């Protein structure tokens, strides 16, 4: 079985975000980049599926040389090989999806895992876009998974419950927190990752369908009122909620 985990390399959640001089992208100076946290669930799911069914695991990403760091981490976690679609130019989601789909067509995997979303652009689009471009089913925000031969049962979080979804391979699945506990790279894994291959390919270019017009810091909310201290402040809080905010 061939299993691919599509991953991303993103600014650390704690990173201070400064808008770049173009007013459309962030200033990356001094920003620490990490393997996208949700993608750790995707990598873990790929590793677990290989442990159960056998086969090969591949990590795939699109980006600059910096992305190799994230790929190296997936190799340290136990992924067999990595592919970097090397492209430093800014792309929108659809253009990334098309480049990933081109590569995935060649790889022809049985199962493709994604993180639910990248914590930079928050699009949550990749599994659906790539699934559609490949003509295979997709299931997003999955919190439980069961493979039985070619039949797959997923649970995905919905408002007020969980949806049980049946599908079959090949399939694109995005992982939500709760699906598994990502393993830490072992020392042996880290050593081994240094000799595992990272292939570099040149992705085709696709025209943008979404333009970023501008990027701003959100208007800083005036720090609110400290109504008071302790339980004595409660009546005043309720009065404000009723009379000022008018929400009761």
């Amino acid at each position, binding site marked *: 079985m061939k299993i691919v985990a599509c991953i991303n390399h993103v600014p650390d959640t704690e990173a201070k975000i400064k808008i770049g001089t173009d007013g459309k992208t962030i200033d990356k100076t001094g920003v620490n980049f990490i393997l996208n946290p949700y993608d750790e669930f995707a990598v873990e799911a790929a590793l677990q599926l290989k442990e159960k069914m056998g086969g090969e695991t591949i990590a795939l990403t699109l980006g600059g040389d910096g992305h190799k760091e994230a790929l190296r981490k997936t190799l340290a976690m136990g992924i067999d090989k990595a592919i970097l679609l090397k492209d430093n130019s800014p792309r929108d989601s659809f253009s990334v999806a098309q480049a990933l789909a081109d590569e995935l067509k060649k790889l022809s995997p049985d199962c493709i895992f994604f993180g639910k979303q990248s914590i930079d652009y928050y699009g949550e689009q990749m599994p659906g876009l790539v699934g559609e471009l490949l003509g295979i089913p997709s299931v997003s925000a999955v919190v439980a998974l069961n493979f039985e031969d070619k039949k797959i049962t997923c649970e995905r979080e919905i408002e007020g419950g969980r949806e049980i979804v049946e599908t079959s391979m090949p399939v694109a699945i995005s992982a939500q*927190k709760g699906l598994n506990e990502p393993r830490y790279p072992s020392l042996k894994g880290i050593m081994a990752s240094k000799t595992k291959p990272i292939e570099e390919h040149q992705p085709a270019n696709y025209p943008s*369908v979404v333009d970023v017009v501008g990027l*701003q810091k959100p208007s800083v909310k005036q720090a609110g009122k400290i109504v008071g201290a302790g339980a004595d402040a409660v009546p005043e809080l309720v009065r404000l909620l009723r009379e000022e905010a008018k929400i009761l």
Partner: protein
Amino acid sequence: MKIIAFAEQREGKLKKSAFEVVTAGNNIAQRLGANLVSVIVGHNLESSAPALGEYGARRILLADHQRLRQYSTTAYAKVITEIVQREQATILLLPASQMGKDLAPRIAAKLSAGMAADCIALRVDGGKIIATRPVYAGKALADVKVISPIQVYTLRPNVFTAVPVKGTTGVVEKISCDVADADFTTRVTGIKVIEGRPDVTEASIVVSGGRGMKGPENFSLIEKLADTLGAAVGASRAVVDAGWRPHDEQVGQTGKTVAPTLYIACGISGAIQHLAGMSSSKYIVAINKDKDAPIFQVADYGIVGDVFEILPALTEELRKAVGT
């Protein structure tokens, strides 16, 4: 020019987001001089459909089929795509709900359409839509313009307020939809319902607890306050990771994004991961013993002090105020 607003239903009942999406569509339609059409996909939809007309949908199309009663990513995507094509619509709006987020990219790919996800504002500038969406954990807002011939937008629930339009009604049309086995490569075979309180993403009030609650047993204080207000219970990542609360209650980066009218944060310090999930709430109340906690920076109203004293007092005071 035609705009299609996808109105989500579950079990034949329209979601609150359906009215929000139709209202947002109506606002854009007026500015662009476009026609607004709403689409519902499911089964047995006649009774709920006319209500959308009161929010500005001129026509309400029912893609009604017994096999569409339960959600299917692939079948719903096919049905909606065909409607967009048949209607020659150029703008498609969906809610950024679990269904909308799952569905929209598949439709966008079928139509080679650009998509702006999880928008918190739409405006029209020079005849073009500019969508605003939070990025980088809400630390920046991106204004984006979709430049493909067909445009897809998903709208964050609870942010766009549904407003009825006086004296308008819509025409309900049942349309035939052609679905076959091959369209159901994913299918929902069941739903595990979590009984009780509303979901954090849908509730108009959310009461959340963090590490300051000191233990899972103390969440009864949060629950009592929530039940007094008919609110949802939320939780910070720390308490979900500690196993005190289930993951479906988690608000923040690895949990859910919420935008209720009132968010009450109890014993939550306000890490950036948490703020990413709740900072678009309309009013935020923070209760925390640490006066320097970052949550007070985003709160409209704060009380510094012990949650174990304040929560029972607040529950009692609100019980009097709302009369339950």
